[in-house]
């Protein structure tokens, strides 16, 4: 088991190095490097920040301030299923706040949070440009148009059902 974790860590490190080395060691590429790292790992572990800092020869404070300033980055791992509720204006006036409340009552998470079992994360996004389909919910990249509270419960159950081994919390 420990061996597996270590080899995973090594693999992660190699992958991170590969991503970072695609960019010249200049500060102006910090954002791009971290975006690619985030895409690969789903979040930015401390190791990733350190390696970025070393690569561009900048202090950790600079990297950390970038990682916390830009909305695209997360310093904690995200859930197996990432729910993105669009809260653009069109979605908002068509009831996205109702959906966000419903997600809270179903899963107990607010925007930016992850369920204790690591199954679901909730994020709000500002506009997906699919305003004709408002309110829109995206679950692991799949777009669900005109979501009602009833439809939302179905979607959540659908993704819950995919993983029978771990029972999700109330």
């Amino acid at each position, binding site marked *: 088991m420990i061996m597996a974790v270590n080899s995973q860590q090594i693999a992660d490190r190699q992958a991170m190095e590969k991503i970072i080395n695609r960019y010249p060691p200049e500060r*102006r590429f910090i*954002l791009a490097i971290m*975006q690619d790292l985030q895409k690969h790992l789903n979040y930015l572990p401390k190791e990733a920040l350190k390696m970025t800092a070393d690569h561009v020869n900048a202090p950790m404070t600079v990297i950390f301030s970038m990682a916390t300033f830009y909305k695209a980055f997360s310093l904690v791992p995200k859930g197996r299923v990432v729910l993105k509720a669009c809260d653009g*204006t069109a979605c908002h006036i068509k009831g996205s706040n109702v959906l966000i409340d419903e997600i809270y009552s179903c899963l107990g998470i607010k925007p930016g949070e992850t369920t204790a079992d690591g199954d679901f994360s909730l994020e709000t996004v500002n506009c997906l*440009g699919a305003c004709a389909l408002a309110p829109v919910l995206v679950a692991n990249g799949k777009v669900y148009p005109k979501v009602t509270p009833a439809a939302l419960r179905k979607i959540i159950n659908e993704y819950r059902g995919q993983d029978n081994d771990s029972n999700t919390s109330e």
Partner: protein
Amino acid sequence: MTQTQVNNPDKRMILVCCGTGCLANGSGPVYEAFCHALEGNDQFEVETFAKATGCNGLCEKGPLVKILPDDITYCHVKEEDVSEIVEQTLLKGELVNRLLYRDPATKQYYRSHHDTNFYKKQHKVALRNIGEIDPTAVQDYLDRDGYRALKKAVKTMTPGEVVEEVLKAGLRGRGGGGFPTGLKWKACASTDDPQRYVICNGDEGDPGAFMDRSILEGDPHTVIEGMIICAYAIGASAGYIYVRDEYDLAVKNLICAIEKAKKCGYLGKNILESDLSFDIEIVRGGGAFVCGEETALINSIQGNVGEPWDKYVFPTEKGLWGHPTVINNVETWANVPVIVNFGAEKFASIGTEGSKGTKVFSLVGKVVNTGLVEVPMGTTLREIIFDIGGGIQNGRKFKAVQTGGPSGGCIPENLLDLPVDFDNLSQAGSMMGSGGLIVMDDRTCMVEVARYYVNFLASESCGKCVPCREGISLLLEILTRICEGKGTMEDLDLLESMSSTIQQAALCALGRTAPNPVLSTLKYFRDEYLEHINNHRCPSGVCKDLTEFYIDPELCTGCGRCRRNCPADAITGEKKKTHVIEISKCIKCGECINNCKFQAVKVK
């Protein structure tokens, strides 16, 4: 409508809209199904092929499929309809009537989208190619006058003449500020510093606006061409396109377009055998709204946190890495080739005295035809919302239209005949912004809308200056209090005085315009604030703490629609008898009121 014979063309194109809205509606599989059905099919009399295009604008009816040159438009096309279209239209030359556009008011069917009210009143300049071309094929762009403006500029005009032309056209920045584009160029060109930059601001962050995304996705070459023309005019050697990382398709199409432009010799060294050398690099934004502000955006490109700086000196003098920089928004760039191609006078003949040309709006919210529209400046809000947009959904009542994004304001019904341009909107207490038009009906609470925008701005404030960071948080606190029924009359005064402080003291435009949603709703919808404060009631039934729904027994027909749609099982009643809402179970989601066809569900 009878079945009409389709003309016999030499070549047929099936244009499948693959804009964001249509893709989300499933146009990807429709396109693939067409490709599959057409591939190796030798039954056609003429060469027939399918193309994936950018957004056509009428997202409400997506996925859209256009057949050219027959000029047939099909709406809501599903994968399973493809074989019927191939069979009926492409082989037999007959229309599939059920897929044609049907006017919601007149119930009439239309063969071509051009004849519909939605398109008839539009005038496409910035969006001229979108929906007509494959954005990944440079030849498509060239076939529609692409890079002709660049050739004209480089071969027949001096840089100074190009600047003059843009100045004469009266083009104003489409990103929000409305600053004359030609003046920016002129200021930059007249500096002593030989190192100059061109930037495209594609950090479209307004919730409810997606015109820049559509342009970048559907016609990336027009933006690139606009930037190269500017580079020639001001003598820049490098350009940057700052685009939101979330816009995957836009980034992909831009990368592809830049590569192709390089291959064609429009980018790189000695462009069109001239002395002009210019390259463009893409920078993906990190998802911070403030980066739409030009100095914050420049900071972000330089690899810093995206905080703005005070503009004692404009970026046209000291911008990117301290050098003179022209920064324009995506839609602005898309207008540049048109101005150079057809002349400033032609461009300036469209629009109003102070605002020339057209403006793209994303018409969204409670409107029938949700989508992207482009109209001449000076078109009235009523024409946009009711003629083009088809009016309010579900026959409800219009309440307000919000323009200008989070920094804009809400415009009430009595100003619907306002001709839309930069100056009129500012006078009405709102702004043009990037062009979001969010239509609101009587089910939209204006206090909650103000709270929504302020909440957005509070979380997007970069925190650098105190009036913005603390002031907006305070506005949010007060508005939340009012929405929860805990507001007092003193709160209204506090909202006004705090707003005035923020307007005067904040560092950048984000802060200075942040009170607009509060002030415009206070101005036009003060009675709603008073209802919340004095009567603890949300007349629109949105603020949950102040809402109670009930069913009017006089109007209820017992159809059961509300009961079936209630996610909380809070509605009981037998068929054809009056239904009742059980208050203790009600989660106040409003599904009942939204679904009732008899307006029997009401807000207490």
